[in-house]
């Protein structure tokens, strides 16, 4: 069975992106697949490469990167949510004349159509909200 996972919460501000990661790992461990993880609302903060948590706290963002890259799963951060919150890849930083980009490796910035496409094509959609 194919899952789409939607994450609305920022690391540390909410538990959502930690819960979603545990769920995503369990989906794969159960023999199911994930067509896409879509980060929306404050969830896009997960894609910020500049997060530097204390060493005794879980590096949630890096754990997501490892999960996405290691399992070849698309981690999409919504472009409109990203632009509002200052998560930019080089293209967008250039487009909006900003001084730097900060999109973490393993994440892709893309449009809301990716959320709809993933939802339509998955067998189950599970949202982790705040």
């Amino acid at each position, binding site marked *: 069975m194919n899952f789409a996972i*939607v994450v609305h919460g920022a690391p540390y501000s909410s538990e959502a992106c930690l819960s979603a990661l545990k769920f995503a790992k369990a989906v794969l461990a159960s023999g199911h697949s994930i067509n896409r993880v879509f980060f929306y609302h404050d969830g896009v903060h997960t894609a910020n490469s500049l997060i530097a948590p204390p060493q005794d706290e879980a590096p949630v963002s890096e754990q997501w990167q490892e999960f996405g890259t290691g399992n070849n799963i698309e981690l999409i951060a919504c472009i409109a949510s990203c632009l509002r919150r200052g998560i930019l890849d080089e293209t967008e930083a250039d487009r909006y004349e900003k001084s730097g980009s900060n999109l973490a490796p393993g994440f892709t910035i893309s449009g809301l159509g990716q959320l709809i496409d993933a939802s339509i094509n998955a067998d189950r*959609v599970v949202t982790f909200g705040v």
Partner: protein
Amino acid sequence: MSTILFVFSRPPHGSINAQEGLDALLMGSAFTTCSVLFVGDGLMQLVAGQSTDDLGTKNFSLSFGALKDYGVTRIACSKPDLLARGLNKDDFLIEVESLNAAAMQAFIRNHDKVLNF
């Protein structure tokens, strides 16, 4: 093609959630049949006469008027939540059906996917 029910439960302006939910609904309507159900304080998104010029947020409540153009035909709200807030449908800026609990359960059952905002 999967149909999608969008459930809106956040009031407007206090956070961006309501506005970003609407953006998702508008995008969804380009792909497939989408409906929307307003529950809890999400009903407050529909209240007519919102004026945000002084606040500085976008008055996206006006965008609900475009849902018809976007092909979103079923727009519903929770009747118990409507009554609990002392509202009636005349307070809303667009026409909305109000559903009792059983009708809302059927509404959810009749869509393939649910996206909550």
